[in-house]
């Protein structure tokens, strides 16, 4: 009994120390940001029901989206390769094939109408800085602009893969992959690094990546970090709230609000975990067996102790 009392004291002091140096200290070191549940409350709700067929005409129309964006599923190629695009605009323009499932419809609508506002980059692109966001604002095609935007969103949704078919990798590559590399997944800003037979070809690819990164660095102010280990260095909660609204955690950052849906954000985080914490399933599996073994071991150790000490008391 006395030993249990001593154990209780040791445990209490250990837990108090743990509480102070972990949860308590971390709450003082990092501002806590609550998730907004990806509702984008500051953006206006969609009031019109979109018509995908009309949206298609608008998206494909001369000088509209396809002037800069590729839509691979609709066989619309990119006007320029990623490196040239980055050298022109600062960053590659995204392919719109799956934009309709990855991005929130409200966000997409707001983005078409006023990119700097939807991306929360008005601190960077405004009249006083004289900078204009490289994505051109859509001023309407002559009719009701809200209806037109709703139609475009409906078209993007109609061509995208189904929610269930969206893989973590697709979500990451579309939402994050044009700015962030992930070397543990062999991902570069211009795509997956292939296996090369000749060193010469590999170097040519690396030069392309470096050229792209130079343009991106100029555009963003610094090269956005490699995200391979971010699941461990930042944790799920930080990443998810950061993706939701980067300004909340890093005021003035050049990173735009990404505008992903809650489901797409989960997929992005899953992809980050696939890179930085690849063995999580194996760990849980092995852990169960080891714990089971140790409990059996403890029972035998206790029985041995009892049998030895029977003569000693």
């Amino acid at each position: 009994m006395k030993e249990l009392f001593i154990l209780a004291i040791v445990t209490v002091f250990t837990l108090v120390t743990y509480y102070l140096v972990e949860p308590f200290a971390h709450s003082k070191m990092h501002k806590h940001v609550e998730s907004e549940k990806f509702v984008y409350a500051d953006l206006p709700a969609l009031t019109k029901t979109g018509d995908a067929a009309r949206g298609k005409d608008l998206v494909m129309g001369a000088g509209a989206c396809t002037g800069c964006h590729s839509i691979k599923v609709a066989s619309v190629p990119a006007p320029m390769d990623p490196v040239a695009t980055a050298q022109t605009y600062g960053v590659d323009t995204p392919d719109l094939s799956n934009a309709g499932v990855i991005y929130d419809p409200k966000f997409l609508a707001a983005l078409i109408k006023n990119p700097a506002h939807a991306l929360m980059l008005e601190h960077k692109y405004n009249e006083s800085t004289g900078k204009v966001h490289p994505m051109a604002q859509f001023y309407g095609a002559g009719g009701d602009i809200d209806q037109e935007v709703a139609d475009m969103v409906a078209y993007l949704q109609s061509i995208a893969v189904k929610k269930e078919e969206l893989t973590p990798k697709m979500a990451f590559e579309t939402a994050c992959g044009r700015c962030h590399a992930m070397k543990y997944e062999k991902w570069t800003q211009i795509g997956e690094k292939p296996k090369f037979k000749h060193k010469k070809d590999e170097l040519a690819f690396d030069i392309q990546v470096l050229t792209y990164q130079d343009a991106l660095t100029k555009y963003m102010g610094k090269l956005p970090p490699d995200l391979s280990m971010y699941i461990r260095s930042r944790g799920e909660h930080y990443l998810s709230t950061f993706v939701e609204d980067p300004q909340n955690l890093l005021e003035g950052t050049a990173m735009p609000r990404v505008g992903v849906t809650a489901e797409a954000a989960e997929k992005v985080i899953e992809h980050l975990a696939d890179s930085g914490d690849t063995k999580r399933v194996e760990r849980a599996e092995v852990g169960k067996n080891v714990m089971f073994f140790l409990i059996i071991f403890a029972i035998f150790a206790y029985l041995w102790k009892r049998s030895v000490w029977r003569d000693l008391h």
Partner: protein
Amino acid sequence: MAHFTKATSVHDWVNQRLGIDTVRRVMATEYWIPKNINFLWAMGMVLAITFALLLVSGIFLLMYYQPNIHTAFDSVNYTIMREVEFGWLWRHIHGVAASVVFLVIYIHMFTGIYYGSYKKGREMIWISGMLLFVTFSAEAFSGYMLPWGQMSYWAGMVITNIFSLGGLHANGLVEWIRGDYVPAQAFLDRFFMLHVLLLPLAIIGLIGLHFGTLRIPHVNNQDGEEIDFEAEAKKYKSGNKAGSKVIAFANDFMSKDMFVVSIFLIFFFYLVFYHYDFAMDPVNFDPADGLKTPTHIYPEWYFLWSYEILRPFSTNVGLMAFGFAQVIFFLLPFLDKSPNAVPANRRGLFAVWFWAMLIDMIVLTAMGKVPPIEPYGTVGFFAALTFIGLWIVLPIITKLEKKA
């Protein structure tokens, strides 16, 4: 040469040449341990097991780790964590054990202080234990450098800066230690050597010494009772095991040791599999960047108390306080003037001193981690003063202590 006869068995053959029966008797079956000691005395065995876990997991990590500033981070986080089968397990065992070993060391130390196990003939046990603590600290610090993450780099920068010795501006010394103006390749190389060779070797030697120091004065016990080990051992050997105050190390105390170890292992592997992150600072999963200082730089939890003794003062005073904290525990057997080797609760004011010291060190630990903003700065300052003050009053209050 000794006289050898034809061996009757393999055991006999080895025994004639190595005297294994004698070794077994001296080390195990007739190594006498007091009966009335609680599970806190099993911490030595817990530490030995944890050290073994560190050694074995370290050897596996060593096979794949690359001590190069360009590849170190990836060799740990990619090669070991992804490519090597069960590399993640070895790494988490190593990382968790590095942290848990200090928790157990602190429990072991405070047990020694509480029961007065450093007194009257047991000074060498205490001093060799403190040497082990210091060597373990150096081992932990050098190991923390190896993944070459942000905290490795910046903690390395901050800790080596201590060797500029404040007002003495011993700048050359810092560069000599680093082998460069900032932590770089030479720094990583030498800390790698220290971590995988010199310090583990020193630790193994010191563990031997620490065991050796127990031989003559014997292990202390829960009541501080003076035991006549020879008389009690005779009683035990005559068959009066229940009446004897001593028991054999093996299997008697060993069976209790192993039970405590088994409980410890449940706790340990729970951390390894389900809560490994408590021992690994997230900041260290960012690769080292000499151009980007982390928002807060702090050491691992087990160094926080002595870091906090340094921090609230001006540079020179802080360094003196820090130096004081590093050596003062060594002097405990000589600063405690009381003849009583009994538990603190039977020693009057010393009991107050003990709990005050324990709580003060926890406060220092907590304050060492939080950012240096108010009120934490002030709390840390007073906790540091309290720490120094407690050591100043120790000889006085123990001198006044009556014979228990």
